[in-house]
């Protein structure tokens, strides 16, 4: 077998960056270690450049499809490494204040990135699983970083236990699928499903259900979302941002590839299941978000709601018409677009949360009273981010939701699209309540904290970039849509 190991060059770069960061951490004097963030972020971006150069418009596989390098993989490689780089940069201030070993922190983020790009490019269940575990193990450590804090410990323990539990479920499901089909390759599973249409082994169905449940835990879909609010609240805020944005994007990349390349022939079996999961996730996430009083918990539930919207897209990946499965390319495009839009808006929101936390020292919503007076810029960014998450125009969220719900209707799931729109209205309520706090309410009289918040230079640049991205993609989406179209075309041909 002739294996082209050079194909993995971008991944080598990524792993190399992680080890270099770890090593340099030992060599640098303590006070300079904070600058490792630049090394890590630069390395992540460099790997993205290498990937763009090596993998532009390629379609190649390793080991008969165990690892697939295609436009979809390339898109997510670039997307995920950029996301990680942004998270590295927004954690700069946090790490300076709270972390004694910056190298360790940043190297873990880079290792997580290695896992994530693996998830997007795996063409086989066990490779996907191992990549997912690499991500998860990095996250177990990162989530539990606030060792001397009770909430931090609670978050760490919950996340590890439920993470391990869900990994076990996932692995159990994989073993059943292997038992029933004799393969773990997505392509092989698809062939088996197509050949045995209408007469599927119950073991196989059970295995698929377990895989779905395991992945449901990872993306925090209801009813498997219980860990999310506690983990989000207890984890360091930059890690929360990473959990909410990057790890979710990677998990959906895995789901997209698995469902399009592996499970599509059995659409009839899982479509209703995913649709119900989507409906439950949207309803629970958005309703429970209303009663939250902590911004990180609120954003946790809001991102549960967003996962519901993304699952609407997964359920709409195809349509069964007269016993024939017709793939729906709009849906996979919509899911990827929504992931990008969600990433911009959510990162903007979390960067604001970090800036507020660093200066006022609280994540409670009451700390946002009168933010427009404390810092008009932060209030503006937060407003734009929340409106984008709510799916309102001018912002990328409006377009991506419009795309998503059009795709769902295209697949004949108008009821689900309608429910999703209604859930959006609910989400607007709690987003508006935050906006009311920032703009309408005055700063507490008893509040002795400084009236003005000065946003440090790096955060300011990042916030401005995220703001411009959130608005810019909402106003001029064609280039992004073309890139997404190419990515989606790689996993869902003929769409």
């Amino acid at each position: 077998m002739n294996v082209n190991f050079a194909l993995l060059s971008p991944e080598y770069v990524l792993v190399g960056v992680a080890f270099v960061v770890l090593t340099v951490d030992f060599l640098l004097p303590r006070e300079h270690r904070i600058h490792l963030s630049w090394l890590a972020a630069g390395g992540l971006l460099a790997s993205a450049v290498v990937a763009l150069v090596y993998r532009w418009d390629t379609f190649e596989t390793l080991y008969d499809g165990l690892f697939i390098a295609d436009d979809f993989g390339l898109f997510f490689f670039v997307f995920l490494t950029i996301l990680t780089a942004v998270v590295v940069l927004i954690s700069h201030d946090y790490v300076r204040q709270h972390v004694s070993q910056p190298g360790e922190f940043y190297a873990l983020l880079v290792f997580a990135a290695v896992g994530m790009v693996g998830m997007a490019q795996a063409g086989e269940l066990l490779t996907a699983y191992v990549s997912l575990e690499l991500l998860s193990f990095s996250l177990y450590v990162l989530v539990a970083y606030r060792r001397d804090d009770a909430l931090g410990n609670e978050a760490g323990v919950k996340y590890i236990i439920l993470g391990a539990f869900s990994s076990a479920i996932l692995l159990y499901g994989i073993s059943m699928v292997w038992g029933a089909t004799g393969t773990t390759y997505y392509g092989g599973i698809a062939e088996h499903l197509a050949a045995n249409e209408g007469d599927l082994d119950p073991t196989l169905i059970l295995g698929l259900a377990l895989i779905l449940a395991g992945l449901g835990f990872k993306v925090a879909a209801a009813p498997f979302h219980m860990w999310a609010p506690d983990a989000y609240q207890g984890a360091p805020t930059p890690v929360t941002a990473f959990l909410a944005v990057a790890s979710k994007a990677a998990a959906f990349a895995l789901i997209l590839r698995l469902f399009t390349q592996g499970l599509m022939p059995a659409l009839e079996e899982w479509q209703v299941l995913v649709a119900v999961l989507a409906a439950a996730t949207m309803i629970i996430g958005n309703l429970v978000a209303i009663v939250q009083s902590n911004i990180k918990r609120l954003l946790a539930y809001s991102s549960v709601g967003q996962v519901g919207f993304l699952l609407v897209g997964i359920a709409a990946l195809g349509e069964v018409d007269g016993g024939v499965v017709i793939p729906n390319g709009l849906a996979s495009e919509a899911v990827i677009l929504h992931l990008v839009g969600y990433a911009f808006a959510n990162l903007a929101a979390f960067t604001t949360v970090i800036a507020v936390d660093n200066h006022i020292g609280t994540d409670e919503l009451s700390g946002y009273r009168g933010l427009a007076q404390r810092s008009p810029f932060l209030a503006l960014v937060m407003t734009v981010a929340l409106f984008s998450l709510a799916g309102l125009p001018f912002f990328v969220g409006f377009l991506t939701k419009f795309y998503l719900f059009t795709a769902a209707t295209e697949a004949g799931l108008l009821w689900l699209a309608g429910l999703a729109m209604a859930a959006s209205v609910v989400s607007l309520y709690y987003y508006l309540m935050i906006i009311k706090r920032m703009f309408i309410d005055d700063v507490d009289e008893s509040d002795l904290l400084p009236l003005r918040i000065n946003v440090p230079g790096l955060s300011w640049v990042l916030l401005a970039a995220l703001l411009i991205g959130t608005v810019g993609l909402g106003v001029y989406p064609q280039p992004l849509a073309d890139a997404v179209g190419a990515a989606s075309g790689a996993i869902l041909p003929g769409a």
Partner: protein
Amino acid sequence: MDGFDGRVLSLLVVLPFAAAVALILWPGDEIRPMKWFAAGVALATTGLVVWVLLRFDYTDGAQYQFISETGWLDQLGIGYDLGVDGIAVAMLALTGIAFPAAILIGWNVDARSKDYLVLLNLLVGGVYGTFASLDLFFLFFFYEIAVLPMYLLIAYWGSSTSFRDFSRLKEYSAMKLVLFLVAGSVLIWIAIVAMFVESGLNTFSLIELQTVGFDESFQDWTFPLLMIGFGLLGGLWPLHTWSPDGHVSAPTSVSMLHAGVLMKLGAFGIIRVGIQTMPEGAEAWAPLLLGLGAVNVIYGSIAAMAQTDLKYVIGYSSVSHMGYVFLGLATLQTLGVTGAVLQMFSHGVMTALMFTLAGAIYQTSHTRDIGILSGLAKAMPVGAFFFAVAGFASLGLPGFSGFVAELLVFLGLFKTYPWIGALAVVGAGITAVYTLRLMAKVYFGETDPRWRGLPDLQLNEKLVAGTLALTLLVVGLAPFYLIDVIRDGVRHIPAVAG
């Protein structure tokens, strides 16, 4: 179209948004230049509207004019397409009057004026965009933009109502308004994506969708979604309850824009998206629209009669007057629909005038209680004069625009549903009762010594009231130009007979 005519609408839509961005980035804290800048922008948009009015060719049979098409998102066939017909032109004219008027009235706002102007510009940009869009995606896009700034505008700059045993927090009214309207837009949204998929053309272009000829069964379930969803913003009974609360809590200039222009977006949407793409659906559901519209007229005017808060009277009178719009639309006759659109214009101007005057009273007397306000004409003769003009237009006195509009609606109704026509005339009678009673008490009643020293209208208020009153009078005395323009748009709608 080439040259300036091809770009004028785009400029009109972009200008308020560009102004909003410019205001956000405005260096320095001096408010006065920002106000002048905003006024300049508002007048510039009015100038563009005048250009459109002058260049609009209503002898030509072309349905849409000033068309500009720009591809935006190929995957979904979305284009930034603009163009206007006679109906939209009338609405542009209304906005062109109301926007500078609102900016001028908002001159008195001193708290965070910058944010206030930004939001006002966003709102008006959305309004212009909705009226000018020929793409369903962008129509919805601008429609949502027009609704959203209302939340902050009411919740921050508005006023809570609390007298006797009644109270309404402004935050409550603002949230109620936004959630009602966004819930309505969910219905619209469902209809829009359903139309996209059903047509199979992979386009959101309204021009193309209007010629599809959807299945009758499809039209039968989609049209009511559009009718209720858009109707909600038009104040369609029984989903109107957000409207009086919102009007009353909003600051004066926002009430003017809201009752004057924003509510018309709803009725406009019913025509543009509903009736124009779903002729058979419109026919099937016209009786319901007719019934609800009749309730609007009667219920709104009776409710207005029972109010003790000056602004609530105007708020409920808006509900009542929008009823005539729905009645006119439901006739599906050229006369009736033309009357409905003219009523949209006329009511927009009239209600803006009323809110200006109510705002002037509230600002100086700090009360809106009709029981307390009495005999203000002595102190505010100019205010009394303009209120009389607005009142006469409201009750449909000949010579004012309201008369022409309501007459056309009545004629359309008597041709199709004479009984409802009779009911509508009764509604006009009730309107006369509460309007005249209000005028008699508040302005010409026994002079209360408390109000003797009340200052009359300020210069900006006089200017605005004068312009609005003049518009009512001009359109009332010489309605032919506007009627011709509107009828040109109406007669191109396949669903409209005669």
